[in-house]
């Protein structure tokens, strides 16, 4: 495998991880807003919002887990020899 190919794979992996991190931050912002809004609504007496908000928050959390796994896989692929990546030094 040529160093150029390894460098390109590393760049791709870095971009994939960056994209995953940006999406993670966006999901987290939505989750924070959701918690804030649902607490405020709950305190205002609208008890019915707790269940749908918890479901949506759970879905967002699952999305975050998926994105972190995706980022980990991208990073691992970039470091795996033979898969376009390089071996990390010991």
């Amino acid at each position: 495998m040529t160093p150029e190919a390894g460098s390109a794979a590393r760049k791709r992996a870095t971009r994939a991880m960056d994209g995953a991190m940006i999406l993670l931050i966006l999901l987290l912002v939505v989750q924070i807003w959701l918690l804030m809004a649902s607490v405020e609504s709950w305190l205002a007496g609208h008890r019915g919002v707790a269940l749908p908000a918890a479901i949506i928050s759970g879905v967002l959390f699952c999305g975050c887990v998926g994105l972190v796994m995706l980022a980990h896989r991208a990073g691992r692929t970039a470091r795996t020899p033979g898969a376009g990546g390089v071996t990390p030094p010991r």
Partner: protein
Amino acid sequence: MSEQPVSCPREKRLWSEEFSVAAGEQSFVERRQLGKFLLLTSAAMFAGQLWLLAKNAFTERVHTIWPRKAVAMESDLAVGAAKVFSYPGPQDNCLLIRLDEERFVAYSQKCTHLSCAVVYSAGNRRLECPCHEGYFSVEDGHVIQGPPPRPLPRIELERSQGQLFAKGITVFGEEEAR
């Protein structure tokens, strides 16, 4: 005496323990750490929602039993006057207001914004929070103006033989659920 360079296997070098990540790998490690931190925060937000859900389920089943407490004699309060009393606990200050000859209302004195003590303005016929200029209606405690997000909790009153008793608290939203 000259020092001889010490040769040792690469794995054993001291700096490799201190700097265990190669420079080329550093960006991956930083992203992984950030990812883990974000995931942990996301889990905390989800846990918060679950806590709210659990609290919701719990408080729906438990009905608070409010004490019955004498707060004032009707004759003690002139029309347009207000009196501070504590209900249900000694730290829970409330305001009793006489609107006219026959009508009495009482509210919690804690502003729903940041818990400042509200005062009754007889001239404007409203309850005013001096901290952030939040105004509440004296008729039903709803927010007229300002940052408070919710109406004032209303104290249920009972009149008996010229005496006024507090017998419960109605928080905004609870009356809809009943």
